[in-house]
């Protein structure tokens, strides 16, 4: 139920983002989704790819610092209040969200929410109990691909 997310440390200066993306593109790895968190000084690139093990190796060999973490994807209807309803469930269960990002899928009229929880297993339990749909990697592939 959990997705493998790769995070890379990047210095916050022009041109830093391109190189790692080119490195995996050269190996034919497609990015399902990504987000970039940044401060004035550094950035953290988080991305989800199907071939995460291969991508991790490419990044490490390229000299980047990479971290692999488990995140949870939930899909909601792409309409006003879609995200709020999911958040309400998490709030009621007092689940702490470390960070999240989202993207919408025009074709399916859905939005995918990616959550980083301190305790992903417990979060999945809560989400399922409340009738939310937790998206698996293969499913995400179908949506995006």
């Amino acid at each position, binding site marked *: 139920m959990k997705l493998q997310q790769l995070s890379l440390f990047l210095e916050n200066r022009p041109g830093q983002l391109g190189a790692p993306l080119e490195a995996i593109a050269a190996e034919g790895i497609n990015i399902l989704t990504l987000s970039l968190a940044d401060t004035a000084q550094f950035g*953290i690139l988080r991305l989800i790819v199907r071939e995460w093990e291969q991508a991790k190796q490419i990044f490490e*060999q390229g*000299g980047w*610092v990479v971290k692999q973490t488990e995140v949870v994807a939930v899909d909601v209807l792409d309409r006003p209040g879609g995200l709020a309803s999911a958040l309400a469930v998490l709030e009621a269960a007092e689940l702490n969200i470390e960070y999240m990002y989202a993207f919408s899928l025009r074709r399916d009229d859905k939005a995918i929410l990616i959550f980083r929880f301190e305790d992903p297993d417990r979060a999945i339990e809560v989400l399922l109990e409340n009738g939310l749909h937790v998206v698996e990697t293969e499913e995400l592939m179908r949506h995006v691909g």
Partner: protein
Amino acid sequence: MHKELWNDAAGGFHPASAPDYLPEQALREVQLRRLRAVVDHAYNNVALFRARMEARDLTPDSIQSLADIAKLPFTVKADLRDTYPSGLFAVPMGDVVRLHASSGTTGKPIVVAYTREDIQVWSEVMARALACYGLHRGDILQNAFGYGLFTGGLGVHYGAETLGATVVPISGGNTDRQLMVIRDFGVSALCCTPSYFAHMLERADELGIDIRASSLRVGVFGAEPWSNAMRHRVEELAGIRAYDVYGLSEIVGPGVASECTEQHGLHLFEDHFYPEIIDPETGEPLPDGEEGELVITTLSKRAMPMIRYRTRDITAIIPERCACGRTLRRMRRIERRSDDMFIIRGVNVFPSQVEAALLAVEGTLPHYQIILTRSGGLDQITVEVEVTAEVFSDKVRALEDVRARLAQSIERILGIRVILRLVEPRTIERSQGKAKRVIDRRHD
């Protein structure tokens, strides 16, 4: 002869190490005899030295006791530069069998010379240094000090051969090959600068090589100051004992002093290198135990005797006898060179202090650089630290926290604000010799 004394895999005793255990009285006698001889030699063959002696109404006969050494003039690095290349040589060139030179970061290098006997003494003291780490015949020593004009490579090489160990003269560089050789040759001891070893560990990690699982058990590190915190870190990461070797080209090269397995101070091979600690401001000798600048007189060098050479290294003689049984006095590890010191906003700072502060924060490897800048008339210190897999987090807050902890750790020690910048791995230039820790852009 004395074959039974030779070091072997059983851990015997190498005859070269015998002077390490001289009774104190005998050692002082040897020192005084050699001191008088070397002063006489320098007086008669080095014009600069003779002129300085005469200016003080001194002759070689003025030296009647070891304490009389304080009457003699100091020699400083500028003397070697001013007389470049051979003005301090004390023998005809026909008797010189080797020249080395220091890397001159500014202008001309300094040149040092050796007679055949000088090379023998150097080989002997370096063999004694290696024996101090428990190395012996049967050990395989990978010498990653640079071979060439730098004294490190050949100095260790000759010492290891004198000891009877097997030398792999790989020199510096080509880190992947270094790692391959450690594994394939069954290397038990490695010699290089501590910053280069840190780089080797980093590369090993990238390649998925576990140095702990290799046959390597001893690291011999020198040619730049390194902190005790860094020692503990590399010992833990590599599963080795890390030892300090001390030397400087002006005196002989590596082998002037070395730690023993006690890891508590460096034994000075004082039967050949007479140590003094002086107050760097006044030049007055200080008693054992007090911190000051190390001054060395070479007691047996023929080609280029150095009388009271000011090393610029800050240390203290440890008065107590070492548990290892050697009678040679020890000096504290040199974590500070007065040459490396920089002054920022009136505060004296040594790079090793910054290094220790970084290492105090769990999980950081010491790839760092200090950059000094001036903006609006005010000096600023920026410390760049490479992010490692251990400290990296996908959470901004966690990474900011690491940054803040590193900055605070340095600020606690220096008492001034620092700008701490996390940088990507391998963005700080790697040195295969001495690391360049400080970049001063204040006068650009």
